[in-house]
């Protein structure tokens, strides 16, 4: 007890510092955004275009990431195969990549002069589809990593029971593994969505910035920063509020997880 008390105090203090540090910029945005600006920013057509584009593109990217990432993560979590460590590293790489590097990489791969330029042409660069591609690229690792960890943490006995009861691999995956890893999948989806909503650098380099087509909310905020700080703050506040709402909703929807 005498040992535990000071330790608990240290942990408590560390948590307080962490929370204060992480919350301060958020609080400051709301404190500095004049309430009148907050309301009028919702009447700013360009800002609304940017918010709409951000949510549409990030939602599309998330759907693609979940559809492809869930079975991929299942394989990574349940199979040992040669080169698996390399595959895991490749999947994690975008996490540590500066967004500018991601943007250059996407241009070099999918730009008109890129590796696959013969196929992609100008169908992705500076197009809304390109925004979705950029968002999927930077956000996919968050989902894959958490989904893999979630699947790996399932009690093997549970999966074994499903198989002995006659369920095939596909059925076990859909009916047992996904519900069991629901919490991790939800957390991964929330993180990936958050990352996609905040994406800036890769979007700018690969998709550019054009109102209604490729200018997402972060790009609109950056543009406003130089000319209209109150509007930039207001749009930031709206983005924070809606993002927080989305994250919370995803967490609540997947809260009663088994794993």
């Amino acid at each position, binding site marked *: 007890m005498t040992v535990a008390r000071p330790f608990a105090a240290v942990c408590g203090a560390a948590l307080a510092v962490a929370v204060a540090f992480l919350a301060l910029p958020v609080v400051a945005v709301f404190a500095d955004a004049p309430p009148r600006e907050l309301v009028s920013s919702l009447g700013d057509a360009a800002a609304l275009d940017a918010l709409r584009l951000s949510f549409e593109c990030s939602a599309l990217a998330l759907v693609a990431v979940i559809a492809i990432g869930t079975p991929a993560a299942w394989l990574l979590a349940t199979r040992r195969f040669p080169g698996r*460590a390399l595959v*895991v*590293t490749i999947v*994690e790489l975008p*996490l*540590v990549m*500066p967004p500018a590097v991601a943007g250059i990489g996407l*241009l070099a791969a999918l*730009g*008109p*002069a*890129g590796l696959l*330029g013969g196929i992609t042409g*100008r169908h992705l*660069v*500076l197009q809304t589809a390109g925004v979705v591609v950029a968002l999927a690229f930077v956000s996919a690792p968050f989902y894959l*990593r958490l989904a893999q*960890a979630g699947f790996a943490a399932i009690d093997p006995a549970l999966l074994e029971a499903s198989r002995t009861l006659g369920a095939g691999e596909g059925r076990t995956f859909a009916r047992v593994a996904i519900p069991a890893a629901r919490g991790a999948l939800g957390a991964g989806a929330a993180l990936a969505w958050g990352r996609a909503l905040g994406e800036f650098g890769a979007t*700018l*380099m690969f998709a*550019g*910035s*054009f*109102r209604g*087509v*490729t*200018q997402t909310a972060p*790009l609109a905020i*950056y*543009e406003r*920063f*130089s*000319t209209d*700080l109150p509007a930039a703050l207001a749009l930031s506040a709206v983005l924070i509020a809606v993002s927080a709402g989305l994250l919370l909703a995803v967490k609540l929807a997947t809260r009663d997880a088994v794993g």
Partner: protein
Amino acid sequence: MPRYFSVSLTLLVLAGCGGGATSLKVSAAASLQSPFTQLGGARYSFAGSDQLAAQIRAGAQPDVFAAANAKLPDALYADGLVERPVAFARNELVIAVARDSPIRRIADLARPGVAIATGSATVPVGAYTQATLARLPEAQRAAIERNVRSRDPDVAGVVGKVAEGAVDAGFVYRSDVVATRGRLRAVRLPAALRPQVVYEAAVVRGSKHPGAARAFVRALLGGRAAAALRQAGFAKP
């Protein structure tokens, strides 16, 4: 284990961004990257001049602000945030195209299907572009505007999009094309359309090294700095 590895790697990458020397901090227009980097002698932060000015207004304190126009430093001077700005170079707005591009003159930009990148209206290069387009006949201006695919926050983004073939043409400075060492070609604008592009630098008030900052600004007008600017495609102020 791999999970913790990637987390610690992220932290390492972030930590690498710190780095603290006591040298002069210079916030400079993106178009100054090539000559200033060659010049060395300070820690440079390159971005759209409007972003750098907004940072100074928000309380960021570099020692020197070097902008791609006179408007932004003059406005900061009027508000007492910088010392009197000094014009130190001129540049020229041009149309950057790929070396083998069929685009020869500004009228070619009005053809359907030509993709164009410009600076956003807030960054000097974008404002110069707007001023230029405004001098064109209305139908031609509208046709060119319809071909704009991206309005980038700084000129570096415009150059990159032309260089990568994402667009056919971009409004940039002559010095930006020089910096590509032949990868891009500059299509000059008719003299009547060319805006005055003057670069101004100013010492930021409250600089911890005002002497060194003033010396830096003075040095831009001659010697090695002026030579580097000329070589990079800038003209005398």
